[in-house]
Every structure is written in structure tokens, then in C-alpha cells.
């Protein structure tokens, strides 16, 4: 396993664009901290985001993992190009001739996917910890380390997404087209949802039930949007007579679905590679 990782690390560490995008990605995660400094005045009301409780433990785990997950598209570019480059440089062929098996090749890529997801999770953990310790109203150990399942969900979400990118990279063989395919797939899921929700099964939950099995929907179900959970939003809603009772917890079902997709994408990458003549 270590050998596979060191092979892949060698390929990435000298690749300038991969390096730049990765660094930008991790810098952007730390920039979540900048949200704290958002401050504006409406009339005579002074509004500071940091005071709204977004950095309170344990809510911060939910908020930060949700925000950081948006940035994953940057690493997706790195993953897709590290796959498709092997085709365009024809180095995949050379790797195999040099004695790497097809299974080892896919594993080396998957180990890298795991590595990126793990590193990013660790990063989010550290950034949240620092932000939380500086701004949170509650600092009891028990509260700080509650709701950590958001970090697990974040990790699984990234792993699933990157495994999808890896598969697309092998399937399409060209970075730009693979990213395009990703966007098309996302639109496809939205259209299917729209059709089911407002055309075929109006007024039922069938659309949500079916769509939860689609990869991108399952990934987004892992960490639900945190905004309506904020105190200010909740009280504003109740004044308008709207009840925002919603379950924000990390569900077991989306977790399992994304894990299943991760397995499928990795397996399909291997199966595709095995079947192809290079």
C-alpha cells in the first residue's frame, strides 16, 4: 500500500498545476475563518456573522463541513486530471509494461483519493477547532466533541465524490470532458428530480425516495444545509408562522449509499481498465 502511495505521490509532487490547485484548495478552507469578519450595518443595527452562533460548538462542525464541501470541486480537477493524464501521456501503458498490475494501478489512485479526503477532513477539523475555540460560547469538552459525525460524513462525501471523479477520468480519458460529464450528470439528476417531483408523482415523496439512491444526491444528503438551523433564521421563521422542524443529523442511509457508490466507482474503474486494450 505504501509503495502504491509513494508511486502516486511521485507523480503528483512534480506536477505544478496539481500542486497549485491543491494548495489553493487548502488555503480556501482556511478562509472559512474570514466569514467571522463579515460585519455590516443595517440602519442602526450592527450585524456580525461571528455573533450569530455559527462558530458555536457543536454547530460549527455542521457549518464548516458544509461550507468546506463546496470547495471539493477544486480537488476534483486534480483527481480527474491525474487519471486522464495517464491516458494522454500514455504513461498508463508504460506503467503496466514496467510491472504495475491493473489492480495496483486503480488501487494507487484510490489510495490517493483516500489521502486527499483524509487530509481535507483533518484540515477542516483543525480550522474548526481553532475557530470554535476562539468564537464559541460553549467550551466544555463534552460539547466540543459532540456531533463529530459531521466529520465522518464529510470524509465519506469527499471520498465518494473523488471516487466518482476517478471513474469519470478513466471512462472519458480527457480532463475537460470528464468535468463536463460531471456537470451534465448533476443537471441530469436535477432534471430527473424535477420531473418526478412536479410531473409524475406530484405531492408525494417518491421523488426524494428514488433520488436518494443517485450518487450526487446521496452525497448532498449526507450533510444538509445548516442555514435554517441558525437561531436568527429559526426565530424569523416562527414569526412568519413557518415551522422549520427538520432533521439535520447525519443519516445512516445516505452514508451507506455513498459507501456503496464509492465501492462501485472503484470497481468499475478497475473493470473498465481490465477490459480495455491500451
Amino acid at each position: 500500500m505504501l509503495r502504491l502511495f509513494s508511486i502516486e505521490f511521485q507523480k503528483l509532487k512534480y506536477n505544478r498545476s496539481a500542486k497549485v490547485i491543491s494548495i489553493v484548495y487548502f488555503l480556501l478552507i482556511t478562509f472559512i475563518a474570514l466569514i467571522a469578519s463579515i460585519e455590516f450595518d443595517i440602519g442602526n443595527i450592527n450585524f456580525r456573522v461571528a455573533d450569530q452562533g455559527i462558530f458555536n460548538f457543536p454547530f460549527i462542525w455542521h457549518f464548516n463541513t458544509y461550507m468546506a464541501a463546496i470547495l471539493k470541486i477544486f480537488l476534483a480537477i486534480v483527481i480527474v486530471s491525474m487519471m486522464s493524464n495517464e491516458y494522454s501521456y500514455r504513461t498508463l501503458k508504460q506503467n503496466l509494461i514496467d510491472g504495475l498490475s491493473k489492480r495496483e494501478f486503480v488501487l494507487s489512485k484510490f489510495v490517493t483519493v483516500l489521502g486527499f479526503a483524509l487530509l481535507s477532513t483533518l484540515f477542516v477539523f483543525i480550522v474548526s477547532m481553532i475557530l470554535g475555540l476562539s468564537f464559541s460560547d460553549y467550551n466544555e469538552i463534552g460539547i466540543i466533541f459532540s456531533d463529530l459525525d459531521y466529520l465522518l460524513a464529510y470524509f465519506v462525501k469527499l471520498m465518494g465524490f473523488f471516487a466518482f471523479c476517478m471513474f469519470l477520468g478513466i471512462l472519458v480519458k480527457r480532463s475537460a470532458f470528464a468535468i463536463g460529464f460531471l456537470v451534465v450528470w448533476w443537471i441530469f439528476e436535477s432534471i430527473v428530480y424535477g420531473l418526478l417531483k412536479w410531473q409524475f408523482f406530484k405531492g408525494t415523496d417518491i421523488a426524494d425516495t428514488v433520488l436518494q439512491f443517485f450518487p450526487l444526491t446521496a452525497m448532498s444528503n449526507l450533510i444538509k444545509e445548516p442555514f435554517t438551523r441558525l437561531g436568527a433564521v429559526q426565530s424569523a421563521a416562527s414569526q412568519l408562522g413557518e415551522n422549520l422542524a427538520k432533521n439535520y443529523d447525519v443519516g445512516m442511509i445516505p452514508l451507506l449509499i455513498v459507501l456503496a457508490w464509492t465501492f462501485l466507482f472503484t470497481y468499475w474503474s478497475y473493470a473498465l481498465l481490465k477490459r480495455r486494450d491500451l
Partner: protein
Amino acid sequence: MQTILTLDNLSKNFGPIQAVKNLSFTIEKGNVYGILGPNGSGKSTTLGIVLNVVNKTSGSYHWFDGSEGTHQALKKVGAIIERPNFYPYMNAVQNLELVCKIKEVTTSKIDEKLELVGLLERKLSKFKTYSLGMKQRLAIASALLNDPEILILDEPTNGLDPQGIHQIREIIKKIAASGTTILLASHLLDEVEKVCTHVVILRKGESLYTGSVEGMNASHGFFVLQSRNTIRLKEELERNAAIGSIKEDGDLITAYLNEPMDASTFNEEMHSKGIVLSHLVKRKESLEELFLEITKNLS
């Protein structure tokens, strides 16, 4: 003798086209093999199959004694296919380090092999700045990193300028002299003739001949002759039992031998009959002539 590679009834179909048809041959240690065949005869496909990048349709092959899987065996093989493939953003040393990691050998031989192919002073330049000839030489260095049991070269001089071709040939000769088994696929016959001891001739995916270069030539060679008295010479040749057919090409007469005979014996014989030869060369058919003959017979 130790067997390095065994092919048994190997076939490959690309849709309706059969690129390799029931191919069988073995590669023994210490010989230099040439795979000959016109473009599209299945040379690269065959090499692709045994190198794990093309899936076979039927048949089987195994490396060495067949006790280990193909990718494990390939770590003891050095191979270059068609054109050199490396990561353009890495320099020569970085690229070779990667190959060492894949082959699970130490990086200690990188400088030695770069020296052998004459790239030592450019070892820190990025691969993308190399000329085609340099890229091909780097590929050879890369294939030699593990001191392979066998070196496989597929059209190593394709697309190179005369100087590049010469350099690559010199390197191949050096490697062959060191006793490494070589398998060289080429459609350039003189290239194969210069270095190979054994040949496999392919045509449309079928093997026409497998064996040593001498064995390919069943005849005893021929004399190319010239004499002022051509008519007398021809008469004499027709009477001689050792001579088979005679061919006339301008002033030159080509006489094919039925049984072994050396040039001086022949010369003495002619002299005793009063025929003075102004030109006498004993030759064997060149690989090209043999190749054309073998492929012609079957078309």
C-alpha cells in the same frame, strides 16, 4: 536452456479482424530475436499481449517457468513499445525514480544507465524538452534499470534521424554483447539482420517461420560470377552437379548451389577447365531476399 517466454496458440481479434492467429513460439535465454513482419502483421499486438496491455482472445502465454503472474514477471523485463512514454513535467532522474518504484529496484543504477545511453549531462532537464532521439534513449535507460532478463524493443528506431538510428543501434549492439536476451520487433530487415540470431516472421498475424537465421536459409548459398567467356562459363555450370539453377543478370551470372562448396574449390575447378573468372563472390541470401521469398510463397 532456460526459457524466457512461451506463447501457445495465442490469438487476438479486433472485432472481425484477426490481428494474431494461433501464434506459438518460445524465447530462449541468451539469443537475440527479431520479430519481422510488414506493418500491420501483428507484431505490436503480440508484444502488447505478453506485456499485459492488450487482452488476448484465446490461447495462452507465460513468462519464465510460469510460476508467477504476468505483472510480477514484467518487473524482470525491460520493454519499450512504439514511442517513449514518460511524464513530461518530470526530469529524467525523476522519471527513472518512478520506474524504479514500480519495478521495486533500487535507484542506485540510474546514473549508470543514463551514462550508457549518453544522457547523463541532461539528466536534470524536463522530459518535454528532449528531442525524439533523446526520449528514445531515455526509454532504453529506463528499460535497463532492473538489469532485465530480456529487453523488448518495438520499432526502436522509428521516426529517428540517421544519427539517432545509429546511436540506438550502437546501444543495442552493446547490450547484446553483454549477453542480455533481446527481442526486437521491426520491419527494417537490415536492422534485424545486423543484430539478431533468431527470427520470427509474421504475416497477417500468422507465424511463417520461427528459428535461427541460418536455419531459415536451407540453401547452400550462391556464387555471383563474371567471365569474359560467358557462354563457356554457362556450359560448364550446367554440366557441374554441384550447381542447381543459373540466373543471368547483365554480365553477372548467379549460380545457386545444390551442395556445399567453397569459393576456392570452385575457382580451381573453373581454372582447370580454362575459364578465367573476373568476378567471384560467394554469398548467402540476405534476410530481405529470404523474407520476400517466404512471404511470397504464401501469398
